[in-house]
């Protein structure tokens, strides 16, 4: 990633070449200016085609698809609840998903899960959209085009031999093999990747998140001298001073501090201290 300070901050600061590279369709869009007539024509067309959509005969009935084996506890036509976890930046929170025969309709927190206690954050609530969003990834891509899992497995099978033989001038198998993931806290996935790395000592594993927590991790490492994760209990505090931290708002793993923080209202040790949070961003 280039240092933040050097990237142009607005489009105006960009050179023409950089503009074309960033917004490939900008040039053609600017060369077809819309006059009023054309605009009205297009609006009329949009109105008319809205009417055409009403003539849609509806989805044809595709009949009943009955299960091969009945799913346990699922009554067709009645909503059912399923416990799972929502993982964000490596922090998992327990959720309960209500679904109709496998189609999720509502996400709620899991009262029995220690990192949810029945609450969810906006990200977990938005998972439903994630599921039905037509733009979401539905499978593996190859050079931008959808491909199937068996194809992917076949391609990886073929690459295996090449990856196994060390490159000229090197003794490590797997050089050139890179694995890119988000933050992984799943023990199973972590163990699997470690086994791959053991089999291909030349391979490299990159962990990257769009909004990463690596500075937090590094800071905790500096503070405690070893990699650490902090479980915050704000009930112990009379005044919280948050420096560039959104602990009670939307940081991953913030749910429990947010829930228990009000519990300590009125129980502080010093009579003249107002229970409060100071945030400096």
């Amino acid at each position, binding site marked *: 990633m280039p240092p933040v300070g050097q990237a142009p901050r607005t489009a105006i600061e960009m050179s023409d070449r950089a503009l074309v590279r960033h917004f490939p369709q900008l040039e053609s869009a600017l060369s077809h200016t819309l006059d009023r007539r054309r605009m009205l024509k297009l609006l009329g067309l949009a109105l008319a085609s809205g009417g055409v959509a009403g003539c849609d005969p*509806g989805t044809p009935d595709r*009949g*009943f698809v*009955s299960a*091969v*084996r009945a799913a346990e506890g699922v*009554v*067709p*036509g009645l909503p059912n609840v399923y416990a799972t976890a929502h993982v964000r930046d490596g922090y998992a929170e327990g959720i309960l998903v209500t679904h109709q025969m496998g189609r999720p309709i509502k996400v709620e927190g899991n009262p029995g899960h220690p990192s949810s206690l029945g609450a969810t954050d906006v990200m977990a609530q938005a998972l439903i959209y994630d599921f039905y969003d037509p733009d979401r990834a539905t499978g593996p891509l190859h050079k931008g085009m959808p491909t199937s899992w068996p194809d992917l497995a076949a391609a990886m099978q073929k690459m295996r031999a090449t990856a196994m033989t060390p490159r000229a001038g090197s003794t490590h198998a797997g050089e050139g093999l890179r694995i890119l993931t988000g933050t992984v806290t799943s023990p199973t996935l972590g163990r699997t990747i470690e086994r791959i790395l053991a089999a291909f000592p030349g391979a490299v594993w990159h962990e990257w998140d769009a909004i990463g927590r690596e500075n937090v991790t590094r800071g905790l490492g500096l503070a405690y001298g070893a990699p650490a994760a902090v479980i915050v209990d704000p009930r112990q505090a009379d005044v919280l001073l948050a420096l560039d931290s959104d602990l009670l708002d939307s940081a991953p793993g913030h749910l429990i501090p947010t829930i228990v923080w009000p519990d300590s209202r009125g129980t502080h040790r010093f009579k003249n201290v107002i229970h409060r949070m100071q945030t400096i961003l």
Partner: protein
Amino acid sequence: MGAPFTSRANIIMTTCLAVIACVVISVCLLWFAWPYSDYDRHVGWAVEQPVPFSHQHHVAGLGLDCRFCHSSVERSAQASLPPTFTCMTCHSQIWTNAAVLAAVRDSLLRNTPMTWQRVTNVPDYVYFNHSIHVAKGVGCESCHGNVAAMPLTYKAKTLTMQFCVNCHRNPGPNLRPAENIFDTDWHPGPDTPGAPALMARYHLGRRNLTECSICHR
């Protein structure tokens, strides 16, 4: 120059007009009535299914209960169709090589679900719920006919709005004791409770069941 029209022209003219009026009116009536006809609604037509399943053999012949296969009918809006596994509890032992059952065996082997064609249907804008009807003493037969006698399943009733509302106006005569709900060839006997008794038993008659929002939610 003689008159261009003879005196007969008047008669021809009026008959033509009358015929045209008749045709227009009957076409209009037909256009209205056709969607409600048994023919257009495929009442009594056997639908082609992946397996020629016979209720006659399985229900009347073997004595299976509807709920063995339509397991959610008492609890849910949907009656649901049986999973492949239910068929295979028997057909892994009897008729194991029958060609008609190939689709059932394939489904279990390949783990691909079977797709049954719909026989009974109401439009999407109508809300229907099985569980309430079963709980309130309406037998399957009232809407599906004598299923146990059908070698191939067909639609027995037209299922127009009039059909539903006719019973909702006065359900009493169509109710039956709880133990006869799944019997599709049931007739009231001398010791069957009368309509008022059944209405009282099922706590009916306190609500207006013809309210539009009951079926159009």
